[in-house]
């Protein structure tokens, strides 16, 4: 199931879609999510959905989902772990160009992910000739980035439990906590109770979104409210997460102790030092931030803000070095410098407001001043000529005689950027042309370098267009077979997702996209666009003729089909 909101660290953009909802809820939600993204007043929209209305909880979840993604924008810019993710993707996208130049010069295909060039066994199996040294270096760099990030994000097993407490999970924990605090701030406690019950509690307790709760609980920050409900104060856990995400990625030496930089190790070390607090449930944000700062200073010599300042200083000091690598690539250097500027702007404001200002409880203060770009995705295809600027779309070649039934163009993504991004109190990308290049070309290039086509993006044409561009230079594109397509899931996963989608979207049944039959959720499967295109359902669907052809070009949404139609039930 494609999430309704996601944050893309490569371009700093928040993507939203309501394509998995039925109408009219989809269009109402789309409008509300846009208001949330722009920091506009939601009161008029919500007037039609008073407390108790059957669609209110879903609408609030979707609205607050945008705030959740804004929190990712905030943490990605502010924290050192977040900034490292961005820098890695910039480095990968910059290195695509020497790779393409080499392939072009040698009249050879280009292989993704790039790490295959550095692996003699994979080269032998795939029949790739030994590459020159610079390509092997790029491959090894990509592999090192991937391995390092995997280590930073890895869940940890303890007996039969797997805990998600790596860097990515900490970002999700902060996103989840900020989302809930924003709902409380804007709509009140009753709505928090409703969406917590409906949407938060069904998520795995040990999973990335809720592991912050486990940390808070183990620090003594929970209290039974007498009604069988444990109320958690997340201030201390949040302060620990933020500090854990501010490890020393520059200047830590060749073999730094893991707790100097790795988020998981830093959480563990901080928890060990701080220990359970008898008054944890009453701890204010200021008290939590002060306590964690004190411990961090003692352990590592710097508070979170000091680590961030040092990270930005180094990033800027190295700008000249990266300039050589980035400057010839349209937009990349300017976007890099704009990112450093954004980080410095956020840090200066956070310092003015104090360390507690970056905790989720204070996030409502930031929320409407954070204006990352919003890409409104329409995976099923939008055929309207008017609207915000198109960033992902294409013109269609219409067969003669079908001009009245086949659209001239299709859009999968429109860009909504703040008009006040230059204002002092707004945190937004400013180098518009540069970020546009990143969004449309460099970010998809980085994804190819890292993991080939094996990504579940909101709109697959985002990556397909980059592949077509590369092929347009006369360079055939090849993939390691495990990375040629997004993950092919097994049948139980597809059924599970259909059931989850039905519950999430309030549907009692689906209409099969192939037969038109009404089907119960447990009789259905969801298929990703690539799963459908690679399944044995495709030839039958194509028998429909030109309508099917047009739909395959324009519609990149998930498919919902009767589960018994699939022969390859464990593809």
């Amino acid at each position: 199931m494609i999430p309704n909101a996601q944050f893309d660290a490569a371009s700093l953009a928040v993507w939203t879609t309501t394509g998995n909802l039925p109408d009219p809820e989809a269009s109402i939600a789309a409008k509300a999510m846009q208001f949330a993204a722009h920091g506009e007043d939601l009161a008029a929209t919500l007037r039609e959905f008073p407390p108790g209305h059957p669609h209110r909880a879903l609408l609030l979840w979707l609205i607050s989902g945008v705030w959740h993604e804004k929190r990712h924008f905030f943490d990605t810019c502010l924290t050192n772990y977040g900034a490292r993710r961005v820098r890695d993707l910039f480095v990968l996208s910059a290195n695509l160009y020497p790779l393409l130049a080499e392939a072009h010069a040698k009249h050879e295909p280009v292989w993704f992910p790039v790490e295959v060039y550095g692996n003699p066994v994979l080269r032998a199996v795939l029949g790739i000739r030994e590459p020159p040294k610079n390509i092997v270096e790029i491959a090894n760099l990509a592999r090192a980035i991937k391995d390092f990030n995997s280590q930073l994000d890895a869940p940890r097993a303890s007996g039969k439990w797997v805990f998600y407490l790596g860097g990515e999970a900490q970002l999700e924990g902060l996103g989840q906590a900020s989302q809930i605090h924003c709902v409380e701030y804007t709509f009140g406690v009753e709505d928090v109770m409703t969406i917590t019950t409906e949407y938060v509690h069904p998520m795995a307790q040990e999973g990335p979104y809720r592991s912050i709760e486990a940390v808070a609980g183990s620090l003594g920050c929970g209290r039974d409210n007498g009604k069988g409900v444990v109320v958690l104060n997340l201030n201390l856990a949040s302060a620990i997460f933020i500090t854990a995400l501010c490890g020393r990625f520059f200047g830590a030496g060749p073999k730094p102790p893991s707790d100097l930089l790795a988020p998981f190790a830093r959480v563990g070390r901080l928890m060990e030092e701080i220990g359970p607090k008898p008054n944890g449930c009453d701890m204010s944000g200021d008290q939590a931030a002060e306590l964690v700062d004190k411990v961090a200073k003692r352990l590592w010599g710097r508070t979170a803000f000091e680590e961030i300042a040092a990270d930005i200083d180094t990033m800027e000091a190295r700008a000249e070095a990266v300039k050589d690598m980035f400057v010839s690539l349209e937009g990349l250097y300017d976007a890099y410098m704009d990112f450093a500027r954004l980080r410095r702007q956020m840090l200066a404001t956070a310092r003015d407001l104090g360390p507690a200002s970056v905790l989720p409880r204070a996030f409502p203060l930031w929320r409407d001043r954070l204006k990352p770009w919003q890409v409104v995705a329409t995976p099923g295809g939008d055929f309207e000529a008017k609207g915000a600027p198109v960033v992902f779309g294409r013109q269609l070649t219409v067969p003669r005689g079908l001009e009245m039934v086949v659209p001239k163009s299709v859009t999968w993504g429109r860009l909504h950027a703040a008009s006040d991004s230059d204002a002092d109190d707004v945190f937004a990308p400013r180098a518009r042309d540069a970020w546009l290049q990143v969004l449309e070309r460099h970010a998809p290039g980085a994804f190819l370098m890292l993991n080939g086509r094996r990504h579940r993006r909101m709109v697959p044409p985002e990556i397909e267009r980059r592949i077509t561009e590369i092929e347009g230079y006369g360079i055939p594109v090849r993939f390691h077979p495990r990375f040629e397509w997004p993950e092919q899931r097994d049948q139980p996963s597809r059924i599970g997702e259909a059931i989850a989608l039905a519950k999430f979207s309030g549907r009692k049944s689906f209409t099969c996209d192939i037969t038109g039959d009404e089907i119960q959720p447990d009789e259905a499967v969801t298929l990703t666009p690539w799963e459908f295109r690679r399944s044995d359902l495709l030839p039958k669907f194509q028998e429909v003729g030109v309508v099917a052809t047009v739909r395959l070009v324009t519609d990149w949404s998930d498919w919902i089909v009767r589960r018994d139609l699939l022969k390859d039930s464990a593809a």
Partner: protein
Amino acid sequence: MTAIDLTGSAEEIRAILAFVKQHPAVEQTSEPTTLDASRALNVGIPNLSPTEVLSFLTLVFTTGKAALDFLKALREQLKTKGGSLAVSESTSGKSLGRIEPGTSDAALAHMASS
């Protein structure tokens, strides 16, 4: 030459790597590769469990018989240590099934001959 991929959780693959490297039937072994390295940060989706991050190893054998010998030894290893691994063709990515303590000789032969 026969080449197969073994896929499992990052931890399972790390655990099996030492065994693979010391087995004489294995001609070449790649370093483990992470399959799902780039996930977007997104809003939580209720009722869906977090998905496991998978890794794989590519193993090269000079003959199908060597591959079969190895797979039989791996099955014995799994009987002791527990767990299971997905097996696929390295050149096409095509699934060949799973190897676990109870996998039959015939199924192993099929995996080794492809």
